[in-house]
């Protein structure tokens, strides 16, 4: 009897010890297989001659060397650099400016914040649809202003291969800048007012207060904003599809649309996998140090 009881307790102890890990294990297993396993799979495919279906015959770096000779990929990378840098810089500048303005004991602050932030709740497809027709020269802004009497007014960037990428910047900034504003506002609210009061007593102007004391203290907010925006820029796909569909021609191709069309419509899966791998490398270069530092700080 005693033996049985002890055995049972032994079993219970084991269960009690293992239960938390058991609860965690389905999630961990899913992530290990469907994130990391799949990453390895795609990475492997990028070294194979996969076309319409995955193949396991290795061809070395061929896909990568082909990839960098494809004009559309060149366009995609250039576009990502143009779009990404403008997107990040404008969002940060606008977000910071709005946050500072909104931090001046504004009446109805909550209401204004709600208006600035609602685009974040929308799908990029909705945003893309709205801006697509608003920027369309035939019916949108250009047509409206012409109908008001300024008949030579021209704003047809969305139809112009050289300018179309900037319309994506316009729509993307509209969608995300309110969010960046919220991040900076949170940073502003965390600043110690004592230092500011002391500087005020010393006669510092408002401009000097912001330039010398406030903005330097917003470094963590800048970091977060940069990481979030850079990672959104690299992943941006929906907005491009909805706004320009990658066109006119291939003028607004970005890596995400390139990967999709090479893999699923042009049946060049090996090259598609190679382009996805490069996107992952770019994201990892930004996210891994960030996650690492955040987790280390905490523990």
């Amino acid at each position, binding site marked *: 009897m005693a033996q049985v009881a002890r055995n049972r307790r032994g079993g219970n102890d084991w269960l*009690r010890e293992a239960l*938390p890990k058991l*609860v*965690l294990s389905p*999630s961990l297993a*899913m*992530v290990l297989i*469907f994130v990391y*396993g*799949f990453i390895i799979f*795609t990475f492997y*495919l990028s070294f194979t001659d996969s076309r319409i279906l*995955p193949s396991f015959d290795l061809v070395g770096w061929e896909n990568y060397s082909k990839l960098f000779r494809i004009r559309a990929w060149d366009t995609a990378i250039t576009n990502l650099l143009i779009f990404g840098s403008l997107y990040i810089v404008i969002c940060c500048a606008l977000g910071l400016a*709005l946050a500072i*303005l909104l931090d*001046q004991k504004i009446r109805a602050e909550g209401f*204004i914040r*709600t*208006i600035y*932030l609602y*685009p974040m709740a*929308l*799908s*990029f*497809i*909705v*945003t893309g*649809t*709205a*801006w697509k*027709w*608003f920027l369309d020269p035939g019916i949108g802004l250009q*047509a409206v202003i*012409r*109908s008001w009497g300024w008949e030579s007014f021209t704003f047809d960037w969305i139809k112009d291969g050289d300018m179309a990428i900037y319309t994506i910047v316009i729509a993307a900034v*509209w969608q995300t800048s*309110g969010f960046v504003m919220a991040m900076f506002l*949170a940073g*502003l*609210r965390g600043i110690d*007012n004592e230092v500011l*009061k002391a500087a005020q007593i010393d006669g510092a102007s408002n401009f000097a207060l*912001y330039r010398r004391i406030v903005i330097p203290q917003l470094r963590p907010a800048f970091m*977060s904003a940069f990481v979030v925006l850079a990672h959104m820029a690299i*992943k941006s*796909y*929906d907005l491009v*599809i*909805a706004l320009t569909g990658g066109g006119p021609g291939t003028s607004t191709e970005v890596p995400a649309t390139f*990967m*999709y069309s090479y*893999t699923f419509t042009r049946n060049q899966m090996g090259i598609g996998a190679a382009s*996805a*791998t490069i*996107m*992952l490398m770019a*994201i990892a270069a930004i*996210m891994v140090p960030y*996650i690492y530092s*955040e987790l280390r700080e905490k523990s």
Partner: protein
Amino acid sequence: MSSNATATVVRTGAGSRFVIYTLLALFCLYYLLPLYVMVVNSLKPLSEIQAGGMMALPDVWTLAPWKSAWSTAQIGVEATGLRPFFWNSIVMVVPAVAISTVLGALNGYVLTKWRFRGDTIIFGLLLFGCFIPFQMVLIPMARMLGLVGLAGTVPGLVFVHLVYGIGFSTLYFRNYYQQFPTELVRAAMIDGAGFFTIFRRIMLPSSGPIAVVCVIWQFTNIWNDFLFGASFSDFDSQPMTVALNNLVQSSTGVKEYNVHFAGAIMAALPTLLVYIVAGRYFVRGLMAGSVKG
């Protein structure tokens, strides 16, 4: 961000306050402009838009574009309107949000109150999974869904959203439970309470706010997703975003801008309503997902 945060001590004179309010109001107009364009143009006949009247209020108010977008507009090859796809999105979102939130709560509980060696690394692995470019998993996922017979189905989409949503829901609950006093959990353990008893009796009753944050975040993300919907659904299982895009991009016939705008509002309404009702939680979710990883 501490809750007792206060506004700045910087003082501004009457003149600059006038400038500040003007600027803030102008930016309100800027952010509201596309919404205005969508709403007014969804309520006017197509001819008014074609005549260059996009910014004007309708001369003739009509609900016809809404009716058309909902039940008769051409989506792809069939004239079904957006209605069936709206339901697809609902049927996809509800289970995906529910399951990922429950799993996230349990994971967060384990990772903060039942810590073990290597738990931070596991959390890091889960977290990085949220940020990968999903292009990296499209090919194998399409294969796998095909192999298990879930390709082109709503359950397949639920599964995909569940897998890639766990990282964020775990993040929310982990960060929230980290603030929760571990002594309470210890005391309950000494009293003999087990893993699930502690979770149900001690953790869950105080998890309301973070559960709301998590549900809203997952709902918004999954409802608004386009990439997975476009990759893994077929005509019958398309979510709303994909159907809207098909409606707008369809190259046959006259472009019915007013119907497109009505459809866009339909796709936006659920997340917009959530934002209006529970905006505070939405913002908290955004911040928790970025500022404090």
